[in-house]
């Protein structure tokens, strides 16, 4: 069975983000494979290690720089990769339509994709991809089992969590808690350089135009007082209450 793990390459969570006239400036920023997507790559590898006969294809839609993240996925254990290259910032709904084409061409039976993107803070790609493909999906998945052509998962909901059983093919969105992703080893990094990475161009998918556009981006952090309250526990606590009541006026 063929599994596809969809990846994004995003700024490292600890990287300092700047915004200029044209929006967020990413020059000089360290990029990494989106942590949320990494859980999907790891889960696919674990399915193979658990004895399932799977081919793992990493799939990404984005600019040339994404190649590094794709190589990371190959070093982690993906068998080969498809990179649809574009510099256009397509919204997740439009992305889903393009990615679904590749998923169909590949004849994959499961797609794993991060639950929320660390750059756009979007949770839309997984469910949108499932809808384009006509498949069921599980979002915010924390546990996954394959058995007899169906998929059993546990996932988080607004009130807690629940277990779901669904037929394959299906889309699974992944998150922290699903597994603990491994690090690529040096020999595997070397091997990954020889693995197949097919380049596709967005133009091959017809005229794709986005549905939304970013008008501007700002770093708008609230001014914080940064006041440190000193003294022993009782003194500091009393002073803090006074400040919250009289200065911040929130109690």
């Amino acid at each position, binding site marked *: 069975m063929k599994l596809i793990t969809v990846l994004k390459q995003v700024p490292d*969570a*600890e990287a300092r*983000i700047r915004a200029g006239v044209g929006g967020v400036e990413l020059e000089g920023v360290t990029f990494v494979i989106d942590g949320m997507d990494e859980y999907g790559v790891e889960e696919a590898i674990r399915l193979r290690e658990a004895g399932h006969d799977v081919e793992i294809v990493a799939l990404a839609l984005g600019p040339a720089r994404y190649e590094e993240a794709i190589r990371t996925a190959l070093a982690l254990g993906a068998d080969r990769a498809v990179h649809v290259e574009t510099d256009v910032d397509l*919204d*997740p*709904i439009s992305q*889903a339509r393009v990615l679904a084409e590749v998923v169909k061409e590949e004849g994959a039976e499961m797609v794993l994709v991060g639950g*929320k993107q*660390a*750059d*756009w*803070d979007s*949770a*839309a790609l*997984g*469910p*949108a991809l*499932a*809808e*384009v493909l*006509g498949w*069921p*999906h599980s*979002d*915010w998945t924390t546990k996954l089992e394959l058995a007899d052509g169906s998929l059993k998962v546990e996932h988080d*909901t*607004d*009130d*807690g*969590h*629940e277990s*779901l059983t669904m037929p394959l093919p299906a889309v699974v969105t992944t998150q922290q*808690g699903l597994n603990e992703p491994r690090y690529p080893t040096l020999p595997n990094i070397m091997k990954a350089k020889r693995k197949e990475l097919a380049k596709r161009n967005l133009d091959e998918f017809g005229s794709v*135009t*986005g*549905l*939304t*556009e*970013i*008008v501007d*981006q*700002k*770093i708008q*952090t*609230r001014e914080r*007082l*940064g*006041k*440190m*309250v*000193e003294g022993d*526990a*009782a003194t*500091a606590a009393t002073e*803090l*209450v006074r*400040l*919250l009541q009289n200065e911040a006026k*929130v*109690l």
Partner: protein
Amino acid sequence: MILLVTTAPGGNLPKSARELVTVARQLAGDGQIAAAVIGPESAATQMAEYVGQVYSFSSAELEPVRAEAVTAVVQQAAQQAGADTVLMTANRLGQSVAPRVAVRLGAALLEDVIQVGGSAGAYEAVRYSYLSRVTETVKTVGGSATVITVKPNVFEVAEPQPGGSVTSALPQLDANANRVQVGERAAASGGRVKLEEAGVVVAGGRGLGSADSFTAVVEPLADALNAGVASTRAVVDAGWRPYAEQVGQTGKSVAPEPYIALGISGAVQHLSGMNRSKVIVAINKDADAPIFRIVDYGIVGDVTQIAPALTEAIKEAKGS
């Protein structure tokens, strides 16, 4: 026509639904608003106090809630209402359903918005990105309709405008709506004010040392403040607290006035769920903890000593 969609667990209209009404009224101007309410009909009746045309989807077929069944209902309601704009709350369910609806309707999606203006076909919305560190303005440039998910606890709760009518609607579900089987469900225990609706939040992290210490330190302070209780991912992963309390990239996003962080170091993933709070307070033994970079008030010290003192000081201040 603007259609807002909400679920109503237990037959009660959630606060977030009345926030959607506020957004719908802003966008509609003098125009008509319709609402689809999924849940017991009593909730639809409540919604008719706010919105002119209410479609009540109270069928048992919609229980338990499944993303694909809700998607089918939203599509049906949008067609019935002739809606070009669909509003949903940006909670887990809304974020699971809205992208599917957008694909079905050939619509553009504006996700997790904190401001929105314009009209059908040319909406402009403000939202956060890059782990809530960036505030961005996004506009729709295509699509035959627009689906908008609205960040909870940002918009005012609407005032009633009674006189709406309720139409019972039977969901038209296809086989796909039932192909996902829901098994065991575990809901968060109630009793305390809901985290996503709390005006004050007390949050605990690994610095509390243990599950028992979390309970002993965080809960009394939360009770003294009538606050919601929040946790970090580390605490939930350690099994100290339920997932429903988790705040951060993989949990809930809250913006209370104040957010009181106890024994939380401040990983960027956690900060992304609370850095928009009006006032941030932190107590932590490590003076270099990243959380102190975004606090209004901070105390460096042993949280298991200072937090109980804070609880006492608050009780005293409230008593006087």
